[in-house]
């Protein structure tokens, strides 16, 4: 190791600069702070991600519950039973209207339970049917009363089509 003799002035000159030290320390602090912030954001995001994942799981379960409910309500078994409870009878006689040729195909016949081709109530097993339609003749009747106030007035004339008018029925 070598030792040198220097003057006071030279020593002052050789002393490390205060500003440089400050810049260095400040730089280190800034970098560390930056890292801290980044870390915090990352951690925060990790928590956010976790809560979103949980939410997604809950929503997926919710979708499944609703899907199963819809499946059950829309199954033909439920529809047949519900229609039967409302006293509906399938009408096998098909009547088709040909608007262009102004023609009616088939003879309209009222449906009657005695002539129905098939039992109205469901006969086909379905163990998956959970939720079923709750309405009955009584509930539907009361719903109609409530709605009747707002019932729209039927249009005065027949529909205008490219081929002309469908004759409006005299009885409404």
């Amino acid at each position: 190791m070598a030792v040198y003799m220097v003057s006071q002035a030279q020593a002052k000159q050789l002393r490390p600069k205060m500003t440089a030290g400050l810049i260095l320390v400040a730089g280190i602090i800034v970098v560390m702070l930056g890292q801290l912030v980044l870390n915090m954001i990352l951690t925060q995001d990790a928590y956010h991600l976790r809560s979103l994942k949980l939410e997604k799981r809950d929503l997926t379960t919710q979708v499944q519950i609703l899907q199963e409910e819809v499946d059950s309500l829309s199954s033909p078994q439920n529809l047949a039973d519900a229609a039967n409870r409302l006293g509906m009878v399938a009408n096998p006689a098909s009547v088709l209207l040909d608007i262009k040729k102004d023609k009616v195909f088939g003879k309209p016949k009222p449906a009657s339970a005695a002539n129905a081709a098939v039992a109205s109530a469901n006969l086909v097993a379905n163990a998956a049917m959970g939720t079923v339609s709750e309405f009955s003749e009584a509930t539907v009747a009361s719903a109609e009363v409530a709605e009747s106030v707002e019932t729209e007035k039927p249009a005065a004339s027949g529909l205008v089509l490219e081929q002309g008018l469908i004759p409006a029925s005299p009885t409404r």
Partner: protein
Amino acid sequence: MGSQRALSRRLGVFALILVVMVLGLGIRLVDYQVVRAEQIREESFKSRSITQTLPALRGQIRDASGQVLARTVFRYDVNAAPKNVGSIFKTIDGVKTERTVEQIVLELAPLVGLTPEELTARLAGDSEYSNLAKKVDAETFNAIRELGIPWIYFDPFADRLYPNGAVAGNVLGFVGADGTPLAGLERQYNTCLAGVDGQETFERSAEGVRIPTSNVTTQPTQNGGTLNLSIDANLQFFAQQVLADTVNDLGAQWASAVVVEVETGRLLAAAEAPSVDPNDPAASDAANRGSKIFQAAFEPGSIMKALTSAMVLDTKTADAFDKVKAPDYMKLDFAGGWIKDSFGHEPYNLTLGGVLRFSSNTGMSNFGVKIDKETRYNYLQKFGFGSVSPLRFEGESSGILHDYKDWDKMTNYATTYGQGISVTGIQMAYAYQAMANDGVRLDPILVENCVADDGTVLYQPKQNATRVISKETANLNLNLMEKVVEFGGVGQNAAIDGYRVAGKTGTAQIKDGSGYGSQFAISFYGIAPAENPKFVVGVTIYKAIGVSNSLQATFPFKAIMQQALKSYRVPPSTTKSPDLPSGKYGEVEPRN
């Protein structure tokens, strides 16, 4: 300077020791870092990495309009750790509340379907595991989770749900408790439905926490494809309703109905009663868990006459005006051989139309045997008999069509009116489809395709067309079959207001040991509208109690055909069938 020397010697020894130690470390370092590096890295990775299987979800099965017939849902097994069972403490707004085990049991018991006593018994002890409920649905799962019980845990697993129950259950098949497909399309198309399980590897820290960004998917999960069927679930349901009604009324063993779209060969309905509910296959007898339409072969009886008549016309053996003798009883040209009609009558002189309309066995054999055996056998093969359909349904029967060389003298006659041969419902329906489709038989379509999540078509059947008879023969034969519905004693019941219907009744005896028993397979197979065929509907009722004619088969036929015509908006016929002879003496019968 003795001490100086001693010092430097000591220094020298120290340096030597240092060098040796550094060398030793260096060798070790090279050994670890270079020589055994790979092995050590692997060991370390193994100890902190975990491989997890990501199960693929089984695909859906849908009907022609996209209605879901089978889907995958999650079910949950509810378990508890009795060891940890205890009160739950909660601090709300500084107030500590306690929920005792008794209170929790009362809340939990109805959700897991146990009585409070049973539940308490299952929570007793200090084991780590006690099952409380199996296979609960998502709603129950949510309700239990909301109770916030720390010692309850769930095992979720994928399960199969058939939202429409037994609708098409016979063809869908079902899966076992462990998800293995056991029958029907579920099994046949398992490769496409099952998908491929994925695998992922990630690293975890000493505390078992997953190290972020360490996921490596070694095998991506490929969910199962969607199987799209040609079945129309609404029509299928309707047909099943009709058949369930019929089977109940007649005390029949089973009944089946097939609806075929003539122009495309698509199977719109393959209905049966009884029919399995795939949600609960155990509720059905083992014999009723498959599909009779594909798996049960029966002697068709008189519905075969419409096909023999087509052969007679196609070979130009006779035309619609040629007549044969048709007594009610006829001795054959070999000892002990005789044929009789199903009802007693004076000797008729019947045209082909008359033979069909009166369903005369004697008349039909007199026409039929004019064609040699080999030709008839070839026609039967071309109509699709004697081999399984291209659908290759699980356990499908080919029926029995013996080689013509093995036909004995009786079989030679009997095959003309549908005895001595056995067929499946699907074979007969497509033989009629050929007649309805200008003589061209199309391969049946039941599965339209199987499509992956990303829209790639994984499977699509190829459809072949076979010309069986000429267009002229096919159309003329349909006109003759219309006479069955216009004038036939039983056939008239199959008439549908506004539509021209061609069809044939069948009352086949069922082999019982070596002879024929007193029970029948009754059928009605028909086509409508006859002038522009859209649908074939074939109904068979097996072993109805005390039923010896086909009248009862006409009602379900009519109901199902009418429903098909109605739901597919087929306009009623505007023409009348041509006047062709079908009377007792070959005359044209007057219409009402």
